[in-house]
């Protein structure tokens, strides 16, 4: 988190998640989830498996209906039409258009988002996607598929990107490269909400964290704030916070 100190975002609330409830039948997935996202920040949603991270992102993106609560954008309720203009969600384990070549899928998203070809070339270069371009999406390795999804998300010219496990399938070097790319995006005014299960990755890239456990928010803030909130001794790390709160 200290690595990001020089690019800390403003305290201007861009999006507020207010009291979201979501259940699948009798099973509660999210209960009264509330937090705020500041303009230009990288917010990490962390929590154990099954905590509701993906459900939360899909509810915010409007891909799952919310049972109660709302998402507000600069203080006003975010309508379904506005969602398409404000944010874009990149799911984790999908393999869109498995029979089509990666280059064709990228070109489709680039053209649909009215992005100049230069932008696509930049992203292909930055994500080292060149070897994957001629292959069908279904034939890509997990790492390349993840990079392709990241590129599809970054091609969407939205103020906010929601990404589910953006570093899954990457080794340390690749994860750091992608983190650099995402930091650049944040520096250029994009706000990022990332669901991350690897606490080390979350520490490295996120300005603030939302800790989810069993569908509830059990802590929000910087690592230092979470340590204080969990009443742990100074110098405790995120893993200890996680074990204490989740």
């Amino acid at each position: 988190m200290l690595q990001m100190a020089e690019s800390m975002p403003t305290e201007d609330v861009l999006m507020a998640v207010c009291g979201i409830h979501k259940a699948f039948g009798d099973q509660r997935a999210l209960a009264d989830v509330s937090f705020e996202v500041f303009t230009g920040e990288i917010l990490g949603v962390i929590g154990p498996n099954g905590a509701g991270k993906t459900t939360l992102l899909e509810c915010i993106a409007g891909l799952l209906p919310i049972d109660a609560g709302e998402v507000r954008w600069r203080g006003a309720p975010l309508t379904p039409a506005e969602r398409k203009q404000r944010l874009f969600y990149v799911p984790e384990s999908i393999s869109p258009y498995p029979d089509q070549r990666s280059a064709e899928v990228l070109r489709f998203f680039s053209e649909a988002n009215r992005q100049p070809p230069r932008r696509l070339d930049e992203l292909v270069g930055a994500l080292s996607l060149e070897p994957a371009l001629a292959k069908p999406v279904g034939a890509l390795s997990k790492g390349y598929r993840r990079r392709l999804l990241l590129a599809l998300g970054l091609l969407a010219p939205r103020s906010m990107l929601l990404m589910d496990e953006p570093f899954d399938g990457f080794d340390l070097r690749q994860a750091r490269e992608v983190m650099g790319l995402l930091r650049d995006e944040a520096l250029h005014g994009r706000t990022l909400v990332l669901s991350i299960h690897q606490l080390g990755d979350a520490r490295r890239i996120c300005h603030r964290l939302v800790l989810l456990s069993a569908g509830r928010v059990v802590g929000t803030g910087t690592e230092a704030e979470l340590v204080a909130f969990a009443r742990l001794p100074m110098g405790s790390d995120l893993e200890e916070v996680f074990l204490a709160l989740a």
Partner: protein
Amino acid sequence: MRSHEPLAPLAPVLRKEIRELATGNSLWVLMLLLSPLVGYSFIQAVALYAEASRPALSIPELARQLSPFDGILVPTLGGFYLAITLLFPFIAIRLVAAEKASGGLKLLVQLPYRLTDLVAAKFVALTAAWLVALIPVLSALIGWAFLGGHLDIRETATLLLGHFLYALLIGAISFLAAALTEGGATSAILALAVTLGSWVLDFAALDRGGVSSLLAVLSLTSLLRPFEQGLLSIPTVLAMLIATVGFLALSVIWLPPGTPLKRKLSG
């Protein structure tokens, strides 16, 4: 960063849908099955027509009662009808269900397209698939013309229009089936239940009158009948178009993930 995105151009999504059709197997499997079916129907029709024509060589009055429309065109398109009824739903369902299954739909609905545009693009691609499927039929008709057979352009166009509208209706029903259900197999069961259910209605109407014959009006096959008699029935054309648009509209309502059931039911 733009805060208000204009709608995306339609050409890329249309190209994507056509690529989906071309790269998948379903259209080519349909062609593999359809071509011999249409070819066999045509050869049988020509053989039967030739046999029926033989007495007409000596009795000219008989020749007047022989019609290539009834003797060649309608039977040749009978094989096409069978393939469209049983196999075309799979092509249509793939266009929707594959995207749902792969997760592509989650990305697609976030792009700056109206849902109507997305469904329309899929439907245009499906229409292109029908045109590809028509190639064996057109080949048979060209073969008939080469053999010296007569083709009345108006009657032929009417019959093809009927089959076109029938395929659109089958496609729209299949889209709705794919939008309503999770998984291509369930969608196929639902779509085939409707198309094959039409045959049941037809058979029921043959045996009994009353309610059965009233229900037979709902049969999709019965909608094709006027065209097979060379009649361009405007009410039938309108009924088929309205039904197609209705099923597509329902697909637009049911397709997007994230819409609460209550809102979907209220349209």
